[in-house]
């Protein structure tokens, strides 16, 4: 007997697949932004499903700040090759050469140059008119108002007061000459949905998500791997000695740039454990990412400037 009801995860999956197919059918040159994190991992799996048995349907674009963890680069190259996807890596070499860093520019400015600028330049260089992002509405307050199809002007800017209404499952992907669209297939997923899906689908992840004993230093309340101390703060190392290093069992709840991503203490070594932790958690996942905390509306500000 056929079951006519679907679990919520299955419904979310089907919705995301529908969205991806619409984009591929209606846009000229789509790309998927790939950050190597768990949300990207889910996005890649959904794209494989949407176009099966076809090849991976669009290139993956990694906007590299140069500050990612070595484990991320290693995983990125191995994983994208294994699924037969074309990987494009773009970096804002000008600002990387200038030594852009949160301690120098502040987190906002650093993000703007290495991520937002890097992204906009990459989209323009390749002429991508549609870019998939893995952002979810539950991540942050201003994202709750984001659409599946988020139209951006020629500067990649988001205008929250002038968004297209999105009705039923009818998406308006029509674009003007200089416009582009960011598409968020995971809009209706929560952090817990993402983890459940990873578990259900056995999706491979960067090992940083799982706990292991790591040599760490506590820096202003944030747990930082000792080996990356210099990357986190080039000036701080002088004042710290071997006695400040503690071996902690810890993991990363979300992965960003080394200077802005702290670890959390944990003994969890598998996805089941992470799910238990997420269910029990009373802290939102971006909290160990410094970029959202600078002002009450900092994420909205970044999105207005073209951050995805």
């Amino acid at each position: 007997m056929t079951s006519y009801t679907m679990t919520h995860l299955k419904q979310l999956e089907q919705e995301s697949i529908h969205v991806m197919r619409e984009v591929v059918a209606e846009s000229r040159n789509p790309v998927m932004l790939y950050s190597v994190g768990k949300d990207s991992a889910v996005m890649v799996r959904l794209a494989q499903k949407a176009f099966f048995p076809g090849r991976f349907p669009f290139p993956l674009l990694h906007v590299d700040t140069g500050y990612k963890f070595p484990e991320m680069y290693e995983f990125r190259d191995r994983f994208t090759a294994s699924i037969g996807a074309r990987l494009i890596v773009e970096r804002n070499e000008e600002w990387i050469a200038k030594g852009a860093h949160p301690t120098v520019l502040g987190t906002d400015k650093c993000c703007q140059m290495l991520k937002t600028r890097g992204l906009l330049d990459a989209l323009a260089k390749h002429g991508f008119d549609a870019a998939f992002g893995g952002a979810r509405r539950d991540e942050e307050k201003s994202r709750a108002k984001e659409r599946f199809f988020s139209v951006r002007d020629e500067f990649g800017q988001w205008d929250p007061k002038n968004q297209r209404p999105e009705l039923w499952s009818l998406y308006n992907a029509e674009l003007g000459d200089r416009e582009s669209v960011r598409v968020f297939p995971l809009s209706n997923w929560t952090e817990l949905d993402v983890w459940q899906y990873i578990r259900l689908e056995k999706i491979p992840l960067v090992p940083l998500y799982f706990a292991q004993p790591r040599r760490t230093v506590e820096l202003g309340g944030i747990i930082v791997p000792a080996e990356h101390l210099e990357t986190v703060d080039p000036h701080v190392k002088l004042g710290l000695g071997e006695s400040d290093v503690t071996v902690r069992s810890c993991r990363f709840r979300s992965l960003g740039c080394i200077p802005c991503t702290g670890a959390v203490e944990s003994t969890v070594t598998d996805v089941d454990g992470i799910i238990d932790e997420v269910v029990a958690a009373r802290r939102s996942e971006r909290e160990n990412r410094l970029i959202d905390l600078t002002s009450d509306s900092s994420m909205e500000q970044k999105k207005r400037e073209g951050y995805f």
Partner: protein
Amino acid sequence: MDALDYANKSLLRFTTSGSVDDGKSTLIGRLLYETNCIYEDQYAAVAKTSAKRGDGRVDLALLLDGLAAEREQGITIDVAYRYFTTAKRKFIIADTPGHEQYTRNMVTGASTADLAIILIDARHGVMTQSKRHGFLISLLQIPHLVVAVNKMDLVGWDQGVYDAIVRDYGEFSQKLDIQDITFIPISALEGDNVTTRSANTPWYDGQTLLHVLENVHVAADRNLVDFRFPVQTVLRPDLDFRGFAGTVVSGTVSVGEELAALPSGRTSRIRRIVTFDGDLETAVAGQAVTLVLQDEIDVSRGDMLVRRHNLPHVANEFDAMLCWMDEERLDPRTAYVLKHTTHKVKAHVRDVTYRIDVDTLHREASDGFGLNEIGRVSLKTSRPLYFDSYRRNRGTGSFILIDPVSNRTVAAGMIRGRTSSVHEVTRTRHAEPRRSTNVQWEAGAIGTADWEARNGHKGAVVWCTGYSGAGKSTVARGLVRRLFDEGRQVMMLDGDNVRHGLCGDLGFGDQDRSENIRRVGEAAKLFWQQGNIVVCTFISPFRADRDFVRSLLPEGVFVEVYVKCDLGVCRRRDPKGLYAKAEAGQIKDFTGIDSPYEEPEAPEVVIETDLETVEQVVQRIHRHLADQGII
């Protein structure tokens, strides 16, 4: 919560609406808080802000204010989506602003909802806004409505206040198309009857809000009958594989079944239902799959796969309800881009039938729509669409209009059906009744002559026409009573009874009046065919409409009775108070005031109710029927 159970929940999408200060944000904040879906740091931030403002308690509504502009103004501007989870279900809330200029947002939020919550402030009772929201919920066909009567704590938990609101809103909702409505007395601020039963409402024996949300049965709301598969994209990774990717909008389909492709009409059978997780035997509504057919038939994006014996309408002219969402007004000269399923065509709005005043539900004549206005239109598209009525199928009955220059989404549309205006029939030289092409009359059935033989008299359609207040209904009732008492097979159709049901969707503009008469004419014909004397009373001011009904029937069957009365007398009689309203400008297009009445040229019977008694005129019509051999 058991983490592993989490993967097996069902999903409910609902929308919330209320006026400013009805406590909507507080209610959502309360639901998120009570279901443990607020993170500690988010709660701490809100607590800090509340303390800074000197609120005295944590304002849960602050959890929801997303954009800087909204925080400044203290109101919600845009639809925000929120998520929470309980042991049973995952919930997606479309939180829509209640402000009147945000009808657009409410329609957007409602378009995907299985259930709607309307908040009513117990202190203020049923306000205009609550009615508007109810109308939109009915328009968008959300299957379930919960009316949460909030701030009960501020009226001392007075059952009388609650009962009055239930009565008022219940009465109002009778006018709407809402199947399931539940009332709950709550305090979002204190949490009463939100997730746990309140000790303050011993007189309330219903469920808590959360209980309703967790248990409302939504699986049955889906259309599992009509298989519709709009093709999104064609997958052909190599020469051996050609599959049609898309989401099953409604119905189910299995391997081996015969399908037809629209618009080509070519047929084939399903060979495989392909997914990444393995082939399926059957696919159901909501599933995103890839269909492989047995034969190489030409199918591309925008085409639709359906069952051969369950077809949607195929037409390039149809009627729809339109909600206008753009600052720029509807322009009938613009060829908009219409997106329907995966199909894009050019579309003109040919005619605005009426606009609905969403506060009073009155239909009014209109030549176009501005932002947040709603009404009925006729559209014509460059190529045919394959559609069902929105009422039957949300997926194939909905569309959006996109401005060809700005690319903005300017309107949301809900298809009612093919264009059905009698004008098309009567204002062309080749007047002929419209006929559905797929209908086969039952052969060997009982004929009109059989009915007449059994009844002992012939059937007829007695059509009383004249001004409002001329006495048509009084005369008709008298005639029907007399024929009934004589044992005749008789029935009555009048303006008031058909406008409640059969023609309940029509207004009083010229086009709708004509459509009203066309439907009544067709109905009368069916009853006549089964031997009835059908007495119809309709103002029916247009000669062309009356002649159209006459043309449906064989010679001698249609008996036109001109119920003549001096307009001055009609106005004085004014039994329904309509002339007074029309003269005050409260009713538009009223026959005799600002809309014409075309006198019959050769009626079978003329009666003058200002000169004769009811008995006299009934007798004259009766004699005519006898003279013609009908009775």
